[in-house]
């Protein structure tokens, strides 16, 4: 088979369907990545227009441009759109598009999950856009502090749009994060050990892990606040044993890591682009990886620095002040590693490099003002003024938008296979750079003069008029620059000037393929022995196209790739991906219907929608593609590997581990809330405790133990090759008993929910009940497989996944029952 025939065969196997049907049924990572990037860019433009409205309002004193009620919606939506609908999805899009190409594989670990995440993002984003167009947008500020966002002070549906829309979008972030983790660890080119991974993959891995740890607290907070708004569960209502500060903790537990979740991918882009522009290799690769990991964790120890003015004791503040200064160290290591890389090489002044210089200028200022506000007494003055707004824009625009623009122009030739012709990008850079600094330097200044953030108007005699006008004019100059970038890209799409395959002389694998890339990425999966394989072997692209490496012989209509051992990169298994499918969009629509039911408070919709979710999920799980024969498969180069689903730990197992990790953080946050209200919340103890029921406790614990033991026995039976009937039966019985016990406790807790204590234990038990239900569904599907037998009989990989979920459900049932049943004794 020659290279062209191979290209045709692989294209037929991997391509999406033609026309609009292709859009809704594609599961290909290049398509999904492009769609993510496109939609995220649209939201960036929407957020930008909102920003211009804000600057118009503030350009003059006593502005009558819009009334405060509308203005509040505008700035709330500006923050919300930029944070949740632009920055995170743009990272997801970049990662989804680039990672398989950088890692030398053909798609991400779960192609259908990428599509599902994308559609959740689109539907959630549409909810918020609809709210905005209908004039019902959230208006409590993007961090939604209760009681301002509680039903007493925000009676409209506005806040619900935020809580439900943003949570829906976060589902997509969690899905993408799981996908990114597993893809980076398992779906790489053979030979690519951890130390040979492209640096962007390290950053993406760290970012994805941070999403899994950082988003659950906010998801929990949103659920609790929505429960308070909809059913009067008083989690944040101090008169009834709740605390408004609980929200602030949960929000910033997410909110501060969020800043680094946004910055780290951008740093990954810089670490990738800058060495190429300096015609050298990155200085201190190992140190940068260590710095990124350290930064990720330190950023989880900063959240209280957003709450320096809430009356927390000084010692508590001091911990966070110290951590906030320390976080500058790993950031500094990266900055100086990049500078050292420039010194090491021969830097060129290309357009991507221009944006990176823009990054250095703005981000260093943002970092330095960040150290200032980390100092408690300074923050007591600067907090909630325009100074902080300016600081965060220096960090986020400087630390994210500039690097992403650098990345855009760097990867544009890879994306389209074309080259730029007009020098519009350079002009745009200067407009954006000068406009940005004009707008936000001025805001530092006016903030120090005392202008608060989020004000809708200010008096003439404040002396802020000229500064604000200057800021507004600069902001519009910046907006023109952004518009020119969009224009530049549009021109690029219209004028097809063929470019060369690797115009920058880069060394990573995404340049070792024809551009624009084919749906299958690599005609054969290369063997990697260097961090920059293409620099080491310039003929690599041709060898890949000639099928000299793994999986160079297409089989039937199977979408094939390899998984590797996470540490060494030794090839481990053959993966057969699912083909195009409308299941993801259907499942996203069903999920969306459940969210919509909660939003419009038509609650009977929710169980109905969830029924569809469960049905579609089961179908999803059943419709796994597999090879025509079981056993070892020939993957080329005289290598035989098992199919991934016939190994003990299939990709589904790995994904479950990461998803359950995020789930554990959510559960931990719930415990944090319980302990927080207990110790710090005003108006505790509650008037009535949940009394101890030995029956419920004993049933729950026995059931949980039976479920765990049963599945252990089932796993043993399957590995011996016999049907796991007994074990599965025991597990099913155990899960059923657990559900009964939890349901009894839940009924009793349900009578206590007009107080924060009762509401909290209700949520804890409900959480356990939901997980027990998931375990029941999964165990039932295992039972069905056992009963059907033959080709459907459960494999070790099936049992192991069900075991993970059931063990977790058992753990949650046991801990939540213990924590709630004994609560009356803990006073």
């Amino acid at each position, binding site marked *: 088979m020659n290279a062209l025939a191979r290209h045709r065969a692989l294209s037929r196997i991997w391509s999406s369907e033609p026309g609009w049907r292709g859009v809704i049924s594609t599961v290909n990572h290049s398509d999904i990545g492009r769609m993510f990037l496109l939609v995220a860019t649209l939201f960036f433009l929407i957020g930008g227009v909102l920003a211009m409205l804000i600057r118009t309002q503030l350009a003059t004193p006593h502005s009558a441009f819009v009334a405060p009620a509308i203005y509040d919606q505008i700035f709330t939506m500006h923050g919300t759109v930029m944070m949740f609908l632009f920055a995170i999805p743009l990272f997801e899009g970049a990662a989804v598009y680039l990672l398989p190409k950088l890692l030398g594989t053909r798609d991400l670990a779960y192609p259908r999950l990428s599509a599902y995440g994308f559609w959740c993002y689109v539907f959630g984003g549409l909810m918020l856009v609809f709210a905005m167009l209908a004039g019902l947008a959230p208006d409590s500020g993007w961090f939604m502090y209760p009681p301002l966002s509680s039903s007493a002070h925000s009676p409209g549906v506005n806040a619900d749009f935020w809580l439900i829309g943003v949570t829906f979008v976060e589902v997509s972030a969690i899905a993408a994060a799981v996908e990114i983790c597993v893809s980076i660890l398992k779906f790489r080119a053979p030979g690519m050990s951890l130390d040979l991974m492209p640096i962007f993959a390290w950053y993406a891995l760290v970012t994805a892990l941070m999403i899994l740890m950082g988003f659950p607290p906010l998801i929990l907070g949103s659920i609790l606040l929505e429960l308070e708004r909809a059913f009067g569960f008083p989690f944040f209502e101090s008169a009834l044993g709740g605390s408004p500060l609980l929200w602030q903790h949960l929000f910033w537990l997410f909110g501060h890591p969020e800043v680094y979740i946004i910055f780290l991918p951008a740093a990954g882009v810089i670490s990738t682009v800058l060495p190429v522009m300096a015609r050298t290799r990155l200085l201190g690769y190992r140190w940068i990886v260590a710095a990124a990991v350290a930064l990720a964790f330190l950023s989880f120890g900063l959240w209280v620095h957003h709450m320096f003015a809430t009356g927390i004791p000084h010692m508590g503040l001091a911990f966070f002040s*110290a951590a906030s200064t320390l976080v500058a160290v790993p950031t500094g290591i990266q900055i100086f590693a990049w500078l050292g890389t420039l010194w090491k090489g021969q830097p060129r002044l290309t357009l991507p490099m221009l944006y990176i210089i823009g990054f250095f200028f703005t981000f260093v200022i943002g970092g330095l003002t960040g150290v200032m506000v980390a100092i408690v007494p300074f923050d007591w003055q600067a907090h909630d003024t325009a100074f902080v707004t300016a600081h965060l824009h220096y960090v986020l625009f400087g630390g994210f938008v500039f690097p992403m623009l650098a990345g855009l122009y760097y990867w544009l030739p890879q994306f389209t296979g074309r080259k730029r012709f007009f020098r519009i990008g350079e002009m745009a850079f200067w407009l954006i750079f000068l406009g940005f600094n004009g707008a936000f330097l001025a805001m530092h200044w006016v903030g120090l003069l005392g202008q608060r953030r989020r004000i809708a108007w200010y008096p003439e005699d404040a002396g802020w008029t000229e500064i604000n006008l200057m800021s507004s004019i600069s902001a519009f100059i910046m907006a023109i620059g952004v518009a020119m970038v969009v224009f530049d890209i549009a021109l690029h799409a219209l004028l097809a000037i063929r470019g060369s395959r690797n115009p920058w002389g880069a060394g990573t694998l995404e340049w070792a393929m024809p551009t624009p890339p084919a749906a299958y990425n690599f005609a054969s999966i290369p063997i990697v022995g260097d961090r920059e394989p293409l620099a080491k072997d310039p003929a690599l692209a041709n060898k890949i196209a000639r099928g000299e490496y793994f999986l160079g012989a297409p089989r039937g209509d199977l979408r094939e790739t390899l998984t590797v051992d996470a540490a060494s990169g030794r090839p481990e298994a053959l993966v057969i991906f699912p083909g195009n499918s409308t299941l993801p969009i259907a499942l996203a629509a069903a999920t969306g219907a459940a969210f919509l039911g909660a939003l419009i408070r038509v609650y009977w919709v929710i169980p109905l929608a969830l029924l569809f979710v469960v049905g579609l999920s089961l179908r999803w799980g059943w419709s796994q593609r597999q090879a025509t024969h079981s056993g070892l498969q020939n993957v080329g180069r005289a290598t035989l590997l098992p199919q991934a689903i016939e190994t003990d730990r299939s990709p589904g197992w790995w994904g479950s581990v990461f998803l359950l990790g995020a789930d554990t953080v959510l559960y931990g946050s719930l415990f944090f809330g319980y302990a927080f209200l207990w110790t710090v919340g005003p108006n505790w103890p509650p008037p009535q405790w949940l009394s101890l029921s030995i029956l419920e406790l004993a049933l729950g614990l026995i059931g949980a133990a039976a479920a765990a033991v049963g599945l252990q026995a089932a796993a043993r039976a399957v590995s011996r090759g016999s049907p796991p009937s007994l074990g599965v039966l025991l597990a099913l019985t155990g899960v059923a008993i657990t559900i009964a016990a939890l349901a009894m406790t839940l009924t009793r807790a349900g009578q206590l929910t007009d107080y924060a204590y009762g509401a909290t234990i209700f949520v804890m038990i409900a959480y356990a009940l939901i997980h027990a239900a998931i375990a029941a569904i999964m165990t039932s599907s295992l039972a069905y497989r056992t009963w059907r037998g033959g080709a459907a009989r459960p494999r070790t990989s099936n049992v192991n996944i069900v075991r993970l979920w059931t063990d977790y459900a058992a753990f949650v049932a046991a801990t939540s029952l213990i924590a709630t049943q004994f609560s009356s004794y803990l006073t």
Partner: protein
Amino acid sequence: MLAGSAAIFALVMLLLLIAYRRTPASHQSERRQERFWLYGLGLAFPLVTLAALLIYGLVLGETLLPKASENVVTVRAEARQWSWSFGYADAAGRRTQGVLHIPAGRPVDVEITSLDVVHSFWAPRLAGKLDAIPGQVNVLRIEAAAPGEYHGVDAEFSGPGYSGDAFTVIAHDPAGWGAFLGRSKE
């Protein structure tokens, strides 16, 4: 702090500029470069600077805390959408709307709370911010050096009336303070 920041910023920009103006020293080993850029500039330099800054900040923060003192005056500030109401420990039952009276030259503890949503008490020339949170009382130590009027605002977004939510602090000389308290007894 500003000068130090400016110096660090200038250093980074200078290093960036020089990178473009010099011929690369290829004889340097990777290890030596790592030592200079990462251990030196990346690690040692920020650690030393930040340690100094942090300790300065914490010491200053300690001095700003309300310490027990003989002549502390206690007042109470209650925020609501969108006005401030003040009460006085030395004059039970006396309340003022939108104007807080304090004695000049004496430490004053303001007990801050809120009746509805989260607000923040901020009289920029007297002290930093402290939030007014429903169900919770936060104590802010302020002190006016001289008699006069000081401007104060709500500094945590609290809804549509937020922009105009302001109050005034009037610091009295001893005689004026006595008169204010005395008048309240009538």
